[in-house]
């Protein structure tokens, strides 16, 4: 089962964990807004339609590469505050190594393959987050 959701609503972890699967092994990753260098707010912009398509392609690739019973990708968009959850990915299956690898794959590739852009607010200013070379390296591992 593949679940892909892009929404401005807060991510409910209890709901998502319950939906993500009951098949022996469940690996998850949650990304949250943190206070880097005085950041007080985060805005997530995305490309409606293309985002959902990119995330679905990613989930399908995980299902092809590993033996999984479920893949979840939930990404929040719009304004967020410190501590808010930005992204939740989960992979479930019969075996822990496959769930763990698939989970790392999902978040590494989501960082480079899905059309999201982060804008940080610091005091009265805002700035667009620069992509990090280390994200490309992490995504490249899986190609």
């Amino acid at each position, binding site marked *: 089962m593949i679940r892909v959701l892009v929404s401005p609503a807060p991510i409910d972890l209890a709901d998502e964990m319950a939906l993500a699967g009951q098949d022996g092994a469940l690996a998850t990753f949650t990304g949250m807004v943190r206070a880097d260098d005085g950041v007080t707010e985060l805005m997530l912009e995305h490309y409606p*339609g*293309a985002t959902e398509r990119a995330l679905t392609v990613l989930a399908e690739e995980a299902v092809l590469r590993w033996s999984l019973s479920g893949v979840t990708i939930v990404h929040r968009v719009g304004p967020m505050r410190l501590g808010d959850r930005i992204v939740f990915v989960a992979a479930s299956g019969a075996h822990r190594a496959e769930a763990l690898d698939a989970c790392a794959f999902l978040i590494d590739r989501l960082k480079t393959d899905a*059309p*999201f*852009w982060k804008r940080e607010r610091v005091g009265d200013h805002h700035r667009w987050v620069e*992509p990090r070379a280390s994200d490309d390296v992490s995504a490249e591992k899986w190609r």
Partner: protein
Amino acid sequence: MRILYFAWVRERIGAAEEEVEPPAEVDTVAALIGWLAARSDRHAAALSEPERLRAARDKDFVPLHTPIAGAREIAIFPPVTGG
């Protein structure tokens, strides 16, 4: 042809989308970016460094040398920073 802009590209141009009809010699995404950059100072400010830009053709991510013939929608944006 519908052009979409995201993130700082959108902010610098001051618009999220526009309809354009590029001439036939504008045949790739890269050529389209050069042609759009000439439309106004704001376009120039957003599009003058194509190496900082990425693109999608009808919602598929593509390299800048991709042909645009037949495309209904081209999106132009900075490298992504989600997750």
